[in-house]
């Protein structure tokens, strides 16, 4: 297979290139050429930020620095400023780093309802467990509703988490209507007077219209039980996801009006750059990032450190 060998060799070269620090690519004192810009563009693409965002950054660099001597700090500030600009959106939403619950929108009184949705295998259940843990640590009482009645053993999975966390869980047998789980969960939450109800849902591809309608129904049911609910609708996005993440964010938001994202599995080599594309095309902020398999591995999303991490390694 001559083609593969060629490809492999080519990739090796690109790989070497990409695994050297950007700082080696853009050496101080050299002239910024088109070729260098193009290489840097490849680097940007590899973060999954998408052609549009990468092009925007490249063009910004081209306009400001092309043909000039590279001054690293200047280049960096241009890149970072542009990226952060793309990430924060117009409103520049930022939350206090000290309070881990700052991004969440709590009900002014009564139960706060958090609905969690996402595609299959994104990491919803694990993220819910982590979020519940975070809430408990901050002294909130949490009730879980096992709304994934479709996938085999999904209810058991969340039940096991609830036992480990020591919080109550509402379940219905596998195969029952998830909206009914949401309903019972809502009733129980009010009855028990918990602070936060987290509703799990089955993973679904955003193109499955009947399942998306089912999701909207869950939202409506929650609204009916607890006025103003759900207060947070979090979309769980796998950090390895490519440009399909944009479609996920769009279609899930259409169905349940997402208020934010949890970027899961950011502990691999994936950069999760697609959130840049998502942020750029719609005002959906990342609120938390999942950084590992342990229950404590959920952190506040910080655009600054995220941008730094995009270019690491």
């Amino acid at each position, binding site marked *: 297979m001559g083609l*593969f060998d060629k490809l492999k060799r080519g990739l090796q070269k690109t790989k070497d290139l990409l695994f050297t620090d950007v700082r080696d690519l853009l050496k101080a004192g050299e002239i910024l050429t088109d070729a260098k810009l193009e290489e840097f563009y490849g680097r940007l693409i590899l973060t999954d930020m998408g052609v549009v965002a990468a092009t925007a950054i490249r063009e910004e660099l081209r306009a400001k620095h092309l043909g000039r001597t590279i001054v690293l700090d200047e280049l960096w500030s241009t890149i970072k400023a542009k990226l952060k600009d793309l990430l924060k959106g117009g409103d520049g939403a930022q939350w206090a780093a000290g309070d881990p619950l700052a991004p969440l929108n709590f009900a002014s009184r009564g139960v706060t309802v958090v609905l969690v949705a996402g595609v299959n295998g994104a990491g919803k259940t694990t993220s819910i467990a982590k979020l519940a843990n975070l809430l408990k640590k901050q002294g909130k009482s949490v009730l879980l509703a096992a709304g994934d009645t*479709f996938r085999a053993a999904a209810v058991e999975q969340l039940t096991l988490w609830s036992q480990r966390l020591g919080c109550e869980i509402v379940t219905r047998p596998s195969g029952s209507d998830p909206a009914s789980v949401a309903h019972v969960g809502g009733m129980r939450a009010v009855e028990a007077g918990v602070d936060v109800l987290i509703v799990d849902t089955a993973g679904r591809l955003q193109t499955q219209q009947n399942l998306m309608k089912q999701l909207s129904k869950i939202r409506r049911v929650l609204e009916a039980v607890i006025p103003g609910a759900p207060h947070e609708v979090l979309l769980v996005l796998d950090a390895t996801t*490519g440009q399909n993440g944009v479609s996920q964010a769009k279609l899930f938001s259409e169905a349940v009006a997402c208020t934010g994202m949890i970027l899961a599995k950011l502990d691999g080599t994936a950069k999760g750059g697609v959130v840049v594309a998502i942020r750029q095309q719609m005002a959906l902020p990342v609120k938390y990032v999942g950084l590992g398999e342990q229950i404590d591995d959920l952190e506040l999303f910080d655009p600054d450190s995220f941008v730094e991490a995009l270019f690491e390694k």
Partner: protein
Amino acid sequence: MFEGITESLTGALSFFTKGRLTERNIEEGLRAVKQALLEADVNYAVAQQFVDRVAQQAIGAQVLKSINPSQQFIGILHQELVQLMGPVDHSLHLTPGRVTVLMLCGLQGSGKTTTCGKLAKRLLEEGQKPMLVAADLQRPAAIEQLKIIGQQLGVPVYSEAPGPGVNAVRVCESGVREGERNGDVSVVILDTAGRLHVDDELMRELEQIDRRLSPHQILLVCDAMTGQDAVNSAKAFNDALELDGVILTKLDGDARGGAALSVKAVTGVPIKFIGVGEQLDRLELFHPDRMASRVLGMGDVVSLFEKAQQQFDREEMEAQQKKLAEGKFSLTDFRDQMTQVRKMGTMRDLLKMIPGMGKISEMLGSDFDPEEGLSQINGIIDSMTPAEREDPEIIDISRRRRIAEGSGVDPSDVNQLLKQFTQMAGVMKNIAGLGMRDRLRAVSQLAESGMLNPGASLQLSKQRSKRGPEDKREFQDKRKKQRKEAKKQRKKNKR
């Protein structure tokens, strides 16, 4: 499926279908192709290499001198795509008389456990006797999940309760031993825990299983929605385990699926299967040529054809065919026919596979749900008495009102269905005489004619001109046959 990538490439290629090719617009077009590939999550380096290679082939006298340069260019693109994604090897290399061990591995959430079930189902259908081994001790309730899947399929599942001393390596070993001892097992499928390729400890565990058991086939399960990182993880798994194949999952969404190109290009490991739905029968063979056709917007009739062959209940079809030929076609048959068609997948899936129809399903917009129309039709038919179904002629105003009430629709909807049915009965009669492929084409025509949307105003059959739509088909068939005959004759003469 690959709709996204198809769309953007079609856009990129419209460049080439217009006007003459020059070296300059080839380059511009190639840039567009590269951009389309990047938007489809094809790895940057792979996309670059691909474009360079196509450029090498395309820029030069060869193309410029050819009669239809744009066609030739698309041909080159197609060929290169096929080469990049092929060659395939669908075989799992099962050895008769010995228990074959398959190991599935991949990142978290890529769909390993579900794919285990799908593979088991496929093997069952091939007459094999699979057994599942629950070696995912990481994720809570993963063992439960596999057990439930095993139960659904009637396939044994080997598992050990988690506890001290129980580790994945041991479970796999005992599982394989159990499979060998059982005597009624021909394939053992190991479901390993999802892991990150940078997690050294867990990767070592996989290597250990590999060393101890040397599974006959190691398959990587890869999410089709993966972005640029697909190459990194696939490469790491391949370096650690020497993969034998890749299974690409979640291709039923709108993922552009560039990962398919990337993974194949970087590892050289063939993609064997693709997962196209949550149900356990939604596992298909991977065909690079078809995928390439799809990528280039040529549709995928062959896939559709195979799907139909699998799903259509032959006997039932024959019975219906007989009825049709005799001109007896009742609403009950109509409903059965639709159920058969539905077994093949959602209408939208089907539409996408027929060349040119993908666009139509796009045009229908996301609100349009063909399934809804079908279930409404089902509801109406369900509300009829058996006598009415056999002979819709007897349905009068009061019967119609009753049916409408029973199925919660407007009386006019019932009327519409009846009109459609009368029309269709005529078409069906014609279909009865056709082969499978022609029949499918006819079904798709039905779809176009509004069968999918009972609310749409129907064209009533017009006065047939001398060569009306139906005669035209017969005429075409006749022509085709004549051409075939002539060809045969020529061959004979040559000899």
